[in-house]
């Protein structure tokens, strides 16, 4: 398994490089630039600015300068937010986004598993119907709409929770954002667990376990739960990337200080450096998390063998 992990790390390197290359050239070849404003800049100023950001060099030269910087951990300056380097902006926003994403991931996964298992055990009885309905609502209603609805419900009408914003150390400000992020993720997990649990509960070895007199709880915990969770593990990788991108909208709606807000503004302003830096970082994080998930998968399911 160590060899497998090592090979996965090695294959991840060209993927990251390829992503950087594609994004770099798409962004550079597109019309428009970071210095297009309402008012055209004087040609001399523009020339100096372009020279400062190396934009006057041939494009392949810019590419190598950029790659060289990334390898040294320097993502270059932000072209629109003067005096800020991309690395600094990322280091301001990223910890918050990660914290939000992982909290939602944790609660969503656990909640989804419990809901899915409960629904499967009570198949075609009222707890099943209620849970399936909640799951459907969680998956179907887009997160930006859901975010606005809970903001209205809990924040404006009931006044139980803050509508938005964030104060360091305040848990209350995080309840609604985490809920919104966790709901669709938990819903998908619950769907998977319900399906596979129903399948597992119909197998012969569960019948054997029951017929030798084991109680329901013991059968579920010892025999049914682990095999039923295997399909969930393979969903966790894509699920994480949904969560990280979902936080774009949640940060926007709840006015939270994460990296997602920077990304959208940066894309709109053609801030090449910031867009590239954020994308690279996301790709890197997601690939790393996928690797962890795959290794976890091998540990959970003895049938999976990595060559």
């Amino acid at each position, binding site marked *: 398994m160590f060899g497998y992990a090592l090979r996965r790390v090695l294959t991840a390197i060209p993927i990251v490089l390829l992503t950087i290359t594609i994004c770099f050239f*798409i962004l550079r070849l*597109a019309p428009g630039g970071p210095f297009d404003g309402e008012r055209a800049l004087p040609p001399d100023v523009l020339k100096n600015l372009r020279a400062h950001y190396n934009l006057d060099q041939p494009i392949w030269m810019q590419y190598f300068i950029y790659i060289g910087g990334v390898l040294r951990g320097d993502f270059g300056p932000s072209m629109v937010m003067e005096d800020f380097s991309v690395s600094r902006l990322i280091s301001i926003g990223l910890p918050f986004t990660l914290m939000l994403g992982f909290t939602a991931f944790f609660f969503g996964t656990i909640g989804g598993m419990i809901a899915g298992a409960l629904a499967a055990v009570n198949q075609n009885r009222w707890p099943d119907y209620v849970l399936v309905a909640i799951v459907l609502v969680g998956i179907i209603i*887009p997160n930006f*709409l859901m975010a*606005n609805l809970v*903001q209205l419900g809990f924040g404006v009408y009931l006044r139980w929770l803050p509508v938005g914003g964030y104060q360091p150390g305040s848990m209350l400000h995080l309840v609604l954002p985490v809920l919104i992020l966790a709901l669709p993720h938990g819903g998908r997990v619950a769907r998977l667990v319900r399906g596979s649990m129903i399948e597992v509960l119909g197998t012969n070895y569960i019948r054997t376990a029951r017929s030798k007199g084991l109680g329901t709880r013991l059968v579920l915990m010892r025999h049914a739960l682990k095999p039923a969770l295997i399909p969930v593990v393979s969903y966790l990788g894509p699920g994480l990337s949904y969560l990280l991108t979902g936080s774009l909208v949640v940060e926007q709606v709840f006015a939270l200080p994460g990296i997602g807000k920077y990304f959208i503004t940066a894309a709109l302003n053609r801030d090449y450096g910031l867009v590239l830096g954020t994308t690279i970082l996301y790709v890197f994080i997601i690939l790393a998390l996928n690797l962890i998930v795959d290794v976890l998968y091998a540990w959970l399911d003895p049938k999976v063998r990595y060559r």
Partner: protein
Amino acid sequence: MAGITGKDAVLSAYAAALEAPKGRSLTQDALRRLVANKAALVSVFVLVAIVLIAYVGPYFLPWAYDKIDWSSIRKPPNFDKGHYFGTDQNGRDLLARTLQGTQMSLLVAGVATAVSVIIGVVYGAIAGYFGGRLDAVMMRFVDIMYALPYILFVIILVVIFGRSPVLLFVGIGCLEWLTMARIVRGQTLSLKQREFVEAARAGGAGPFTIIFRHILPNLTGPVVIYATLTIPEIIITESFLSYLGLGVQEPQTSLGTLISFGAPVAEAMPWMLIAPAVFLVAMLLCFSYLGDGLRDALDPKDR
């Protein structure tokens, strides 16, 4: 032969009098199952109604979606003036705008789904049919794409290619084909072992003739199912982009844009949020129920 004992004649007369057993084709079977599924059936009717209202409705409304009524800005529903859903912050009729937004969502659903189906089917069929190293490389690529935060790429594409709706739709379609490719590949792997493919190959058909003439027609069921399940995903993506301000441009609108304008003022002017939200959620629910119903009706595992 007949007439030696007379028995054959009797028997064949008897057989002719019997009603021929009615065979049911697979399609008929699936249709019957779909009709039996009430949620799916209701969804079909609601969807047809939404399409009709979205495209025919505007002709019967007193206000066009981009017409400004200076005398009523941000007004609740008013039947005398013909603003059945009220007006928005610029005095434009909200029902007309909601219908226009619904048209936009349906258009995205059509164009982007078509693009994603074409790419996914061709990609999956080629990977599955040729197999081996090519298959391994192509599917590894799909795995990687699965893991990438595709919405970031959509945002980059939208920013670069401008807010042209067609490009937006094609861009979304280009990034939503992954599941389709996986499913088509799996089906192709099993189909290519079948006798009729072997017969075609023995008859001298080239690989692409086999793929397009013999394998793809047999994939219709799963492709239709997953296309239906892709539609809500695509509608969500488009409304998400519009919500962030990256979608279609004024005076055209989309349900996501309407929600983004309606949400901040929902406390004082709830009608600005309710109308687009109801249309969006109704459409998503119906497509999702229809997709599930089609899957239950067509899924070979169920038979």
